[in-house]
């Protein structure tokens, strides 16, 4: 019988540790599929974050380097500069990329490093127990904003993708959401394009993915998808930013 669908080679046949309804597992698969469709598994080096996705290298079947919290783009910069013929990406959460690692993110982007960035925005710190992230929405309750984020004291959700798009060194920035079949397909395309950009030496390409965290949003998986659609993507509009 002709095989028409299966698990892609770059994704190991394992159960993940992610909570039900979490977007990380979906995006892991999309990344692996994009890599296999581009036939770059043997030359790919992934840089994993500190966050819920720290052990993504257990699920992916290609070379990976674990970075300290927020330093993914410093680590990736060196790897890519020394191995320009390889395909190097970072996979980072919103705390990792947009709080503790803001300086590394902005400066790697500004240097126009020829890298691919997959940025998972789930509006909370998942790994440490649902604390407020730079991307937490106004009014959203979290472990460290128990009354809801108050812009007067905690500031506004940080649209770091729009901020990065201002930089001359940045080639492309796109925001997608894994909140529907359509969104998932769109995300995969965006990731694939971001890899192709790198292979064509076009420079820094970032894909921000709005991704559910039902556990720390205190919602069911389905409610989470609705929340992305109705709330989160109002603050973080989807589409090509640059």
């Amino acid at each position, binding site marked *: 019988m002709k095989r028409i669908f299966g698990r892609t080679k770059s994704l190991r046949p394992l159960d993940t540790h992610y909570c039900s309804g979490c977007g990380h597992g979906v995006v892991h698969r999309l990344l692996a599929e994009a890599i296999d469709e581009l036939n770059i*598994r*043997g*030359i*790919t*080096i992934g*840089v994993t974050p500190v966050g819920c996705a*720290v*052990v993504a*290298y257990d699920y*992916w*079947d*290609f*070379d*990976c*380097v*674990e*970075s*300290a919290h927020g*330093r993914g783009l*410093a*680590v*990736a*910069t*060196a*790897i890519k*500069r*020394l*191995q320009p013929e*390889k395909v190097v990406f970072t996979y980072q959460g919103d705390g990792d990329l947009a709080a503790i690692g803001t*300086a*590394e993110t*902005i*400066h790697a982007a500004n240097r126009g490093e020829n890298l691919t960035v997959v940025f998972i925005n789930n509006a909370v710190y998942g790994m440490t127990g649902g604390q407020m992230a730079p991307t937490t929405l106004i009014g959203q309750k979290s472990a460290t904003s128990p009354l809801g984020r108050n812009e007067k004291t905690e500031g506004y959700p940080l649209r770091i993708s729009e901020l990065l798009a201002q930089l001359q060194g940045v080639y492309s920035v796109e925001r997608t959401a894994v909140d529907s079949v359509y969104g998932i397909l769109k995300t995969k395309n965006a990731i694939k394009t971001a890899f192709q950009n790198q292979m064509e030496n076009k420079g820094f390409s970032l894909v921000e993915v709005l991704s559910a965290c039902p556990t720390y949003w205190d919602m069911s998986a389905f409610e989470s998808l609705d929340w992305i659609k109705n709330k989160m993507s109002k603050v973080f509009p989807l589409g090509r930013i640059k």
Partner: protein
Amino acid sequence: MNREQRTEDRGEKVLLSGNEAVAKSAIDAGCRFYAGYPITPQNELIGYMAKNMASSGGIFIQSESELSAINMVFGASASGVRAMTSSSSPGISLMQEGISYIAGAELPAVIVNIMRAGPGLGNIWPAQSDYFQAVKSGGHGDYHCIVLAPSSVQEAYALTFEAFVLADKYRIPVIILGDAMLGQMMEPLSVHSQEFIVHSKKLRTKSWAATGCKDRKPNVVKSFYLNLGDLEKFNLKLQRKYKNIQQKEQRYEELNINDARIILVAYGTMARLAKQAMVSLREKGLKVGLIRPINLWPFPQKIFQRLAISDKRLAFLVIEMSYGQMLEDVKLAVNGQQRVEFLGRSGGGIPTEEEIIKSSLSLLSS
């Protein structure tokens, strides 16, 4: 005694500052990645790298911070390339998390600290007050760095070269611990001739590096061991490695210790002043010797242990540009069996030859 001194060849003589000698040595040793952030008194080092790394086929990056620099070194080393960063005290403080990650991932790397005086912003004068941070390991976790302390520009060149060999051999971060005086002073030195220079392409490839899994199983460079028991097992492996290094890599220079009643103990540039004082005291007919630790970690315990149990009554005078940091390691090695005294200044103050002589004389008469 020092492997590098034995391999001294007939290379050309040059005049360089300590900072430049470290940078040149790194390139000669096959270092092909450098990232750093400017800070006095090591700016000649980053300047030399900016000028010479690209023409040597390597990568130079002025990073946005020392945090970024050390993590770039992490990535470079994970790529299997000899990599280095340098800074001075406050910048090295910022790097501590990264150094711990490098130790945890068992990556080779060379980190240069041209010490200035602290705490805080302190000042830019010479100091040795980062000894604890380097030797006891300033980051989190049970780890060690090999720490080498050159006392001349020639030795800075030799030990930096050696640092890359040790880093690769043991897969360990190696710290070159110098001070503002060493970094800034210029001295003539002989550098390796072409045949001794390392060609990075000819270095053995590192089977564990992240280079793409084309012809092998995937590699992962990491320091995370979530499952209970796994980290303990890994840490015990690290401890065995450290034991082995402690056995094999204790290095020091000794002068006139056989008949000595007082042994001066100093490292780095401080040892040069101590040596001067020793010569003056010997001229007066006084039995004074010197031990100069070259490796600060592993600390050269064996020589102190041997002297500690001799029948003769001895006194050690530890001299530092700090308020007594290496002093603790000397005391540990001597273990209360002989007298250990201390002379130190910090904040930019340097114990003078006269002060050393005075302290030695009062020790001899007490």
